[in-house]
């Protein structure tokens, strides 16, 4: 069901895929797929004039679906990376992020360097994984790659690893929402670089122009800010997003 | 009726029938005896084309079984066969066992087939078991039902492969009785059996097989009382 815009007339429903295991961006609440990304992509599509249907498919499948053009858009807190750009297109960035470390309270790990020799859980195929592999080598023995971030965090909670590396917003939200788990997050701006999320599109997608325009519109007309505040209770730094374009 | 010429049959390298020559005349009752493994069953099975013949020829009513043009299924229905293990169809009632082939092969109507089936069951003394399933019958009853089933195709020849040797001794008699009656009615029969009493009473000829060959043949009386060949003597001394 890829988009076939029939020239002028009615626009076809876009299939948006996501991995709803990355709160607060996209997650399941009693079976409902919700989150900042979900609200955002709906707003973008509305702005661009497309009806959308959001489907939870899982993280690895997101990329397979987009590469195979079986879905039109993926939104899943996906960082725009040079490597991904070889195979996919992205819209202009819509979110600023960076990786962060999640550890139990009282852990000796205080920075990324302390992760050396420690067991780390990451989500397979994420920038968190890449960051750790850049530090300690690809496919090294101490790294456990899970299918989604929830399993990685569960592994940490159950004592199977010493740390999880994932996006800061996700890590911090988790720490805040689960005080009983006694987890803390550790920032390391020296090691973890700024990342920008974009909507993932198939290479050469005809939607890119429309969507870019729509994203920019939302950034400018205050819709983005409203959504951002609803989900994160703070104001976004729109300037840095615009600079990145 | 049956003419077997230079019949040969091998399983792989194992030559089971070496060179069999027999003629069975209409209404004749031929009894085949011989030690285990001598090829008696294989011989019968070749006559009924349940085995593909390796060499030689078998003629039934002058039709060559080996001829490509021969309709084997039609010919086979001319030859009834009764097995040691009965081989009744367990999912069908006795009467249905008997009706099946006439209906499917001869295309009789169910009614005609049933009337005929009941008649045959009467003949073998099993009318009251028409609606029973084979599993509820005793061995002797099963074998009689199997004979009725074979007769339903109105064969001109009946082959029996040790029809009584899977039976409890007290049931042997009832089956032999049915067979004797058939013989008296003039059915052409080839019977593999070790029931010497039967052979003497109704057999016209006895063939003694050993090692894939017919070693000796004669009237029952002559063969049992006055065997010529050493192997026949040895065998009879053990069995009688």
């Amino acid at each position, binding site marked *: 069901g890829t988009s076939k815009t029939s020239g002028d007339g009615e626009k076809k429903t876009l299939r948006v895929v996501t991995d709803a295991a990355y709160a607060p961006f996209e997650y399941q609440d009693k*079976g409902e797929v919700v989150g900042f990304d979900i609200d955002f992509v709906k707003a973008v599509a509305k702005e661009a004039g497309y009806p959308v249907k959001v489907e939870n498919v899982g993280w690895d499948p997101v990329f397979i679906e987009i590469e195979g053009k*079986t879905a039109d858009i993926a939104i899943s807190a996906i960082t725009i990376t040079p490597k991904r750009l070889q195979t996919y297109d992205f819209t202009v960035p819509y979110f600023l992020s960076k990786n962060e470390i999640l550890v139990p309270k009282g852990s000796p790990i205080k920075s990324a360097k302390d992760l050396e020799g420690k067991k780390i859980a990451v989500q397979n195929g994420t920038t968190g994984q890449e960051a750790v592999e850049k530090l300690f080598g690809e496919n090294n023995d101490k790294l456990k790659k899970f299918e989604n971030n929830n399993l990685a965090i569960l592994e940490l909670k159950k004592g199977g690893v010493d740390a999880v590396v994932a996006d800061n917003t996700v890590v911090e939200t988790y720490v805040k929402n689960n005080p009983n788990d006694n987890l803390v997050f550790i920032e390391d701006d020296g090691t973890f670089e700024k990342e920008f999320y974009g909507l993932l599109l198939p290479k050469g997608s005809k939607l890119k122009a429309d969507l870019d325009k729509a994203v920019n519109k939302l950034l400018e007309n205050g819709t983005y800010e409203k959504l951002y505040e609803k989900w994160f209770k703070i104001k976004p730094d729109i300037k840095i997003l615009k600079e990145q374009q | 009726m049956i003419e077997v010429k230079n019949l040969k049959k091998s399983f792989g390298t194992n030559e089971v029938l070496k060179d069999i020559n027999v003629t069975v005349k209409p209404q004749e009752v031929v009894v085949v005896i011989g030690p285990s493994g001598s090829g008696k069953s294989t011989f019968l099975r070749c006559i009924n084309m349940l085995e593909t013949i390796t060499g030689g020829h078998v003629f039934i009513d002058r039709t060559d079984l080996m001829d490509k043009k021969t309709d084997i299924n039609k010919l086979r229905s001319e030859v009834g066969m009764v097995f040691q293990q009965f081989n009744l169809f367990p999912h069908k009632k006795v009467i249905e066992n008997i009706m099946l082939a006439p209906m499917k092969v001869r295309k009789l109507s169910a009614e005609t087939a049933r009337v005929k089936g009941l008649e045959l069951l009467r003949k073998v003394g099993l009318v009251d078991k028409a609606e029973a399933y084979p599993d509820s019958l005793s061995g002797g009853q099963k074998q009689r039902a199997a004979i009725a089933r074979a007769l339903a195709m109105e064969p001109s020849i009946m082959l029996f492969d040790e029809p009584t040797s899977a039976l409890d001794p007290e049931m042997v008699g009832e089956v032999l009785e049915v067979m004797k009656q058939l013989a008296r009615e003039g059915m052409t029969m080839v019977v593999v059996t070790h029931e010497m009493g039967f052979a003497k009473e109704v057999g016209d000829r006895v063939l003694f097989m050993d090692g894939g060959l017919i070693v000796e043949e004669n009237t029952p009386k002559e063969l049992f009382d006055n065997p010529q060949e050493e192997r026949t003597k040895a065998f009879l001394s053990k069995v009688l």
Partner: protein
Amino acid sequence: MDFRWDLIVEYAPLFLKGTLLTIGLSVAGILIGAVLGLLIGLGKMMRKKLWALPFRWYINFFRGTPFMVQILLIHFAVVPAFLDTTNGILAAILALSLNSAAYVSEIFRAGIQSINRGQMEAARSLGMTHGQAMRYVILPQAFKRMIPPLGNEFIVLIKDSSLAALIAVPELMYWGRAMQGQYMRAWEPYLTATVIYLVLTLSLSSLLSLLEKRLATE
């Protein structure tokens, strides 16, 4: 350990929905699989070895690889090749059907082979053709013997269908994983799923053994 019953209560409607889908997937799988399996079984039994080869390889493939690989390949490669989009439910049913067809074909073969050779010989000696003997004598008996192993295959499908969660088909396991993800707890979601699976498979298998007894005494 504190066991959060409230979470289970909260997720109950979803588990129910998931259970229904699990049953639906398995039923579809066994039905389509049975039909396909018969055809493949017939194909494999063909006299000409060369013609039977593709069927043989079909069976080898589906019996020789993990169901996880099969469902992923079918979901991401086979279905999109035809539909131009993925479709989890379709892929799950396809994977379950194709997989069970391989096993059913073996059940079918075993069923036929379990019928005493004498049955075929008796039928042939009455003048029936091979086809008639199969149809009226062998198959009716073989089918009866196939019921219990087909029932077992159905149970296998119920369990295998849990892998559909990996392609986000909202069956029972999917909701277990969703609950795990939402509340980061292991015991509650997985135990709930376990119990439901147990109820499904055990009630089915006791039904089966009842049926088997019926068939045996008939």
